[in-house]
């Protein structure tokens, strides 16, 4: 699973997560501010994304698999086109999606989740949310494992072809999984208490914005502003 999340390491990985998050946000804002007719701007933004992907050393196959959730929406756009929509709208929406999702994939590839969480904490996202995100990330794989195990056990007792009626059994499985989740959460809480937890969530932060971060961020945002402003028609 880890290779699926962090397919490569590059100098970008070492940067503060706030830098990368802000770069991503700036890029998407630039894409969303670009009008359909600003052809040069689109091409430059696409080129910029390609450079970013290369710099992050993202493997092509991995990149393509991460685009999968977008496909149904490209399909929807195509349906809109077939039903009398304009070619420009379809092209525009598709390009916007590809660029924005591409940038999001870049963010995921360059920023390990734990690092991203630290950045969010530093950006003053409410503690309740960051703590929930932290626990969700930590126990995601544990729970997927448990769900998969229960599902396999069920399917091995259910050799016939499954129908919608199995939904009720899956419901019971889900209920059982929730019970295990609840018991686990109780035990986690006891483990937290045992290590002195008193209600305040304390953790460490290993990141710091240094000169390289600020320089890259300013340069990148400056470039984006230039692209959107200069290629205005």
């Amino acid at each position: 699973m880890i290779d699926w999340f962090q397919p490569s390491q590059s100098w970008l990985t070492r940067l503060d997560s706030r830098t990368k998050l802000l770069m991503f946000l700036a890029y998407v804002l630039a894409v969303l501010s670009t009008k359909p007719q600003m052809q040069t701007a689109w091409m430059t933004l696409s080129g910029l994304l390609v450079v970013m992907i290369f710099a992050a050393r993202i493997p092509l196959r991995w990149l393509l698999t991460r685009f999968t959730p977008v496909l149904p929406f490209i399909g929807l756009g195509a349906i809109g086109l077939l039903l009398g929509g304009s070619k420009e709208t379809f092209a525009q929406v598709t390009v916007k999606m590809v660029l924005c999702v591409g940038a999001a994939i870049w963010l995921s590839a360059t920023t390990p989740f734990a690092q991203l969480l630290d950045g969010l904490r530093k950006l003053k996202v409410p503690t309740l949310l960051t703590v929930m995100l932290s626990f969700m990330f930590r126990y995601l794989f544990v729970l997927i494992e448990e769900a998969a195990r229960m599902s396999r056990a069920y399917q091995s007792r259910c050799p016939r072809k499954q129908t919608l009626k199995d939904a009720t059994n899956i419901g019971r499985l889900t209920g059982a999984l929730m019970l295990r989740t609840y018991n686990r959460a109780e035990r986690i809480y006891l483990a937290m208490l045992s290590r002195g937890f008193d209600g305040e969530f304390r953790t460490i932060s290993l990141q710091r914005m240094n000169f390289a971060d600020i320089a890259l961020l300013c340069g990148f945002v400056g470039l984006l502003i230039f692209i959107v402003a200069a290629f205005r028609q």
Partner: protein
Amino acid sequence: MHIPDGFLSNPVMVTTNAGALVTLGAAVKKAKGELEERQIPLMGVTAAFIFAAQMLNFPIIGGTSGHVLGGLLAALLLGPNAAVLVMSVVLIVQALLFNDGGIFALGANIINMAIIGSWCCYWLYRWLAKLCRNETIAVAISAWLSVVLSAVACALELTISGVVPLLVVVPTMAAIHAIIGIGEALVTVAAFAFVKRTKPELVRG
């Protein structure tokens, strides 16, 4: 359906993000007041549970399969305010970790699945339960509606963004999710009944 970035028009995106931010802010404030210390790990791990539960597929027709949203179930188990946060966390992690759903589109997705699909349908369930005095029916209908209404909201956002015509996308999404919703209803009813039977003190909704 998790809407990706770049699909929604700017006005829709800005409005939905603003709406979601305000609602989330309120939910965080309320939750801080209501929650006991020991429930915070529970909320986080429940988010992981919802994600895992969403991976349990059930077959619908032919070779297709659907999966649950879990919004109403989360609200029945944790209460509506906590559930909004849990479902939002699920959506945020899906966007950040799996690129399933956009980051600027989180507002729309949160409104559809966390607010409409969880919070609103919880209160709908409470009203229905009083109305028809049968909890199971209330759960089933509310679970079904949570899927259908969130799909319709999604369709409206897509159509207002000007990509697909209203008269096509709304009925189609509604029809597809009307069938998926049956699965959601069955799963939610069974899961809720199971938990109530084995550990009733777990239910806070």
